[in-house]
């Protein structure tokens, strides 16, 4: 009896293991962090792929935020690759830290035949190391200045006359009028980060690091960018908030008359349906006095990466290639779907012919065709070098900017000196 039982158990285990093995070969696991945005987009991609490959299961695992994915990947890498998925999503600014700290961890997708000339070039830079390119670019963070048309009217201004390329000087002037007339700050500002400054500097084609990776803050773009922040703050145009939730409530509740952010904030704006018909989107203001400055920049954005040791590496690469990097009409149609469904604008250049790219959106003032605008601005975004020490720089610049707003630091030069000291101490040589 006992022997039979043992034999049965052994058999059951064998069958179980075998079943597991076949299931794994047909399964691709993806880690990402927003079920309404990147998780949704990946599931749409899975639908397209499953139409041709019904035997493959794409499992999308949601994390609370990007740090959640990065933290768990880091723990897995320290454990020799245990428990990692086949594909993970990383913020573009995070990825170089991983590529440098964990050599050889991601699969080279250029070698696997992905044509990177078809992607927006500023997205490909951070994922390139020598002749290897590791990721599949996901969304653009093409930026704009969102303003409340109804507030502009209350301040006696005509919203339509602002729908054109402006400079930061124009915005300071506009902010002063709005502040004086309706006593609202023009722009909601999140003091827990420094992305605003980075966005201004990138719009002017500026860099924070030299090509060899060393820090270089003494550039015309960075100085002018800090000066813009100082001018905005001195004029009382920045509505100070602390952290994401507080920032969102400041513009969704109407405490501020606007914000600077990327295309992906549209979903968050729409979560306040009472604001329908009130928003306009202006091009990113131009940084005065810096050569090469554009009315366009980038904020955020992320990309998909395949782990080189993934059990189903070939399957994962095939999935990404035939959805995110394919001119197949079904794949291009999926890009069109996620643009409307989640405000996720891909960076695969052939995908921009979809109908939703030119569609008008009733949520905006006079049904502005915002996606066409963002797509147009995306082409002009200058590339930014993030390097592995981008997060360290943020940990030094964020406090320095806080001191500027408090008046403890008075000039761009003082802010730069403070940030340089902080950077030297936080970075590991």
């Amino acid at each position, binding site marked *: 009896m006992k022997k039979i039982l043992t034999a049965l158990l052994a058999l059951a285990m064998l069958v179980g293991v075998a079943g597991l093995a076949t299931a794994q070969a047909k399964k691709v696991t993806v880690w990402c962090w927003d079920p309404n945005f990147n998780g949704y987009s990946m599931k749409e991609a899975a639908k397209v792929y499953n139409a041709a490959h019904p035997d493959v299961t794409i499992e999308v695992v949601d994390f609370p935020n990007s740090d959640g994915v990065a933290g768990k990947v880091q723990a897995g890498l320290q454990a020799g690759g245990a428990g990692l998925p086949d594909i993970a999503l990383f913020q573009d600014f995070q990825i170089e830290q991983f590529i440098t700290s964990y050599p050889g961890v991601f699969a080279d997708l250029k070698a696997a035949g992905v044509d990177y000339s078809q992607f927006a070039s500023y997205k490909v830079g951070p994922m390139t190391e020598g002749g290897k390119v590791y990721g599949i670019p996901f969304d653009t963070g093409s930026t704009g200045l969102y303003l409340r048309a109804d507030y502009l009217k209350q301040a006696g201004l005509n919203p339509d006359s602002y729908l054109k390329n402006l400079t930061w000087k124009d915005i300071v002037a506009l902010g002063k009028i709005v502040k004086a007339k309706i006593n609202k700050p023009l722009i909601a500002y999140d003091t827990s980060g420094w992305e605003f400054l980075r966005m201004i500097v990138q719009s002017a084609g500026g860099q924070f690091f030299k090509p060899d990776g060393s820090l270089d803050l003494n550039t015309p773009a960075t100085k002018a960018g800090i000066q813009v922040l100082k001018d905005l703050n001195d004029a009382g145009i920045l509505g100070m908030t*602390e952290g994401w939730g507080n920032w969102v409530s400041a513009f969704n509740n109407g405490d501020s008359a606007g914000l600077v952010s990327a295309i992906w904030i549209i979903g968050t704006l729409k979560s306040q349906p009472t604001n329908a018909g009130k928003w306009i989107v202006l091009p990113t203001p131009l940084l005065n006095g810096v050569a090469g400055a554009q009315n366009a920049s980038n904020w955020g954005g992320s990309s998909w990466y395949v782990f080189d040791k993934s059990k189903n590496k070939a399957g994962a690469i095939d999935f990404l290639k035939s959805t995110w990097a394919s001119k197949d009409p079904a794949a291009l149609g999926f890009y069109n779907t996620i643009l409307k469904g989640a405000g996720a604008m891909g960076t695969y250049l052939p995908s921009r012919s979809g109908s939703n790219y030119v569609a008008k959106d009733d949520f905006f003032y006079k049904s502005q065709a915002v996606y066409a605008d963002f797509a147009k601005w995306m082409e002009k975004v200058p590339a930014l070098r993030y390097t592995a020490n981008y997060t360290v720089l943020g940990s030094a610049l964020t406090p320095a900017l806080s001191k500027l707003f408090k008046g403890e630091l008075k000039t761009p030069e003082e802010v730069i000196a403070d940030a340089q000291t902080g950077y030297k101490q936080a970075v590991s040589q």
Partner: protein
Amino acid sequence: MSQKGNFAKYLNRMGWLFIAPALTLFTVFMLYPIVSSLYLVTRKWKGSTDSFIGLGNFVRMANDSVFWHALGTNFFLMVVQIPIMVVLAMVLAVVLDQGIRRFRGAFRLMIFLPCITSLVAYSVLFRILLQTNGLANNLMIGSGLISQPIAWLNDPFWANMTVIVAMTWRWTGYNMIFFLVGLQSIDREIYEAAEVDGAGKLYQFFRITLPLLVPVILFSVVTSTSGTLQLFDEPNVLTNGGGPANATMTAALYIYRQAFVINTDFGYATAMSYVVVVIAAIFAWVQIRLLGGERK
């Protein structure tokens, strides 16, 4: 004789057998990490890259003003927050024990409840309450107490006050329980004798209650000190990773950020942990001496 010796051997074996599970877990999860971290201290270990740098991590630490500032924040919070909390806990305990008769259990529960709430959950709640357009500011402006909102989370001084308020809210009830136990162990006859001699309530408190509570006060201070040295959740969640301008950065938070957020520098993080451990050990030694002194 030999029989007895065998039995002792048997007992010895059984003893080892019984503690084997605990010993195994201790070795794998405590002893091994401690020993292997000694090796880490001498390495520059970033991600999967690893090289020997001797005392390099300590040289770097000596020049790292953020680390020393973070330790300073720990001490500042210790010096300011612990006395406030201990005095408050003691006063509440005395009031609950001697001052009021009705609803004592309900009050005790209300004051104790914060310390069983999740650290992250209460930090998030405080964040929402204290943001610039949050409930706290709106109430105070509405009632005319202040005219401009206070930047509870955005100003270095107020951010530290916020952390102090939050910690006091969470831990006062916990310490109050020890004081309640301490009060109950004081013989009521001492108070009766004092009353016969004509001592007032206040006089009784300072001459009887306070001296007899000294061991509890010491215990409370010792546990709070080590808790404050390890402070992590509040500055991480409440003030967004030690902000503003690193004003609420604590040593534990900085170690975590060096290892997991801004760098993947595990060697440096380990080296800093050793310094914090040494400081904690010195504190513990001093305090154990103080506590031991009281017992005699």
